[in-house]
């Protein structure tokens, strides 16, 4: 990341001036499979029912024929809306790893909108859980991040390539801690060699930690 680039609100609202985005992820698409299966069964069943009603003899002359078609169409439309909302919610949930923190965004279009932040410096322990046939076959799992100041750990569910993100978070944490040490000791000591790498106008001096 270019140290002199102003990243304020660059990639997401609330991004700090010197904060760079390292990685981001959504849940593994496998979470949509149960909904896809239910959608296929219900849509197929209702479409078949609609087909039968239309091809029944004398259906056009009665009131109940078109009425049954209307009810079936309403059900079909409702199922399409519900399934589409579930897919959209999948896209809105996101985990962002920046150079300072881990951000877990849990959002739906209408019902909830929550964000959880963990400062990389506060991370005590990260646990990767990848149990079962499908998680190991399709390479997804949960990452649990323990923080001393929080009672409950932050769990990132169904993360694809959990090993990759585990190493990314660990690497970002190490870099962040090294940066803070440089800030703390490097800028105050005129004889320190690292002062050359972080001059007085470095954006790192502007972070309010």
């Amino acid at each position, binding site marked *: 990341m270019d140290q002199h680039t102003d990243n304020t609100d660059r990639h997401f609202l609330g991004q700090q001036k010197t904060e760079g985005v390292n990685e981001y992820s959504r849940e593994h698409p496998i979470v949509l499979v149960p909904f896809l299966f239910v959608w296929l069964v219900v849509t197929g069943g209702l479409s078949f029912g609609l087909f039968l009603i239309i091809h029944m003899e004398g259906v056009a002359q009665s009131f109940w024929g078109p009425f049954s078609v209307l009810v079936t169409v309403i059900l079909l439309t409702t199922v399409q809306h519900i399934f589409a909302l579930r897919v959209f919610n999948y896209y809105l949930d996101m985990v962002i790893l920046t150079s300072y923190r881990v951000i877990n965004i849990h959002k739906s*279009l209408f019902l909830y909108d929550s964000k959880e932040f963990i400062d990389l410096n506060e991370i005590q322990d990260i646990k990767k859980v990848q149990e079962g046939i499908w998680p190991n076959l399709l390479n997804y799992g949960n990452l649990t991040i323990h923080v001393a100041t929080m009672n409950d750990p932050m769990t990132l569910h169904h993360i694809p390539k959990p090993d990759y993100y585990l190493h990314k978070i660990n690497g970002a944490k190490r870099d962040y801690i090294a940066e803070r040490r440089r800030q703390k000791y490097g800028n105050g000591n005129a004889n320190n060699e690292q002062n050359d790498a972080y001059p007085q106008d470095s954006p790192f001096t502007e972070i309010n930690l």
Partner: protein
Amino acid sequence: MALLILNIFIHIVSISFALLVVARIYSHVQKYRFEKSAQDRLLKLFHFRWVVWIYLVVILSSAVASSLIIYSLNP
């Protein structure tokens, strides 16, 4: 005829809801501006836009098809 009018009314509500959903999606997406690069492969905004378009097409075609079916059964 009454059923046809009821069907059209229901689908006007359905399409309005779909447009509201799309408006909320785009207002949310505008808060995130990840550049197109190798690092950003997971955002898949392109796929997301396709999903939105498919959703609108399904809802609109459902409205048209149901109206035609009900009209053909009971004009």
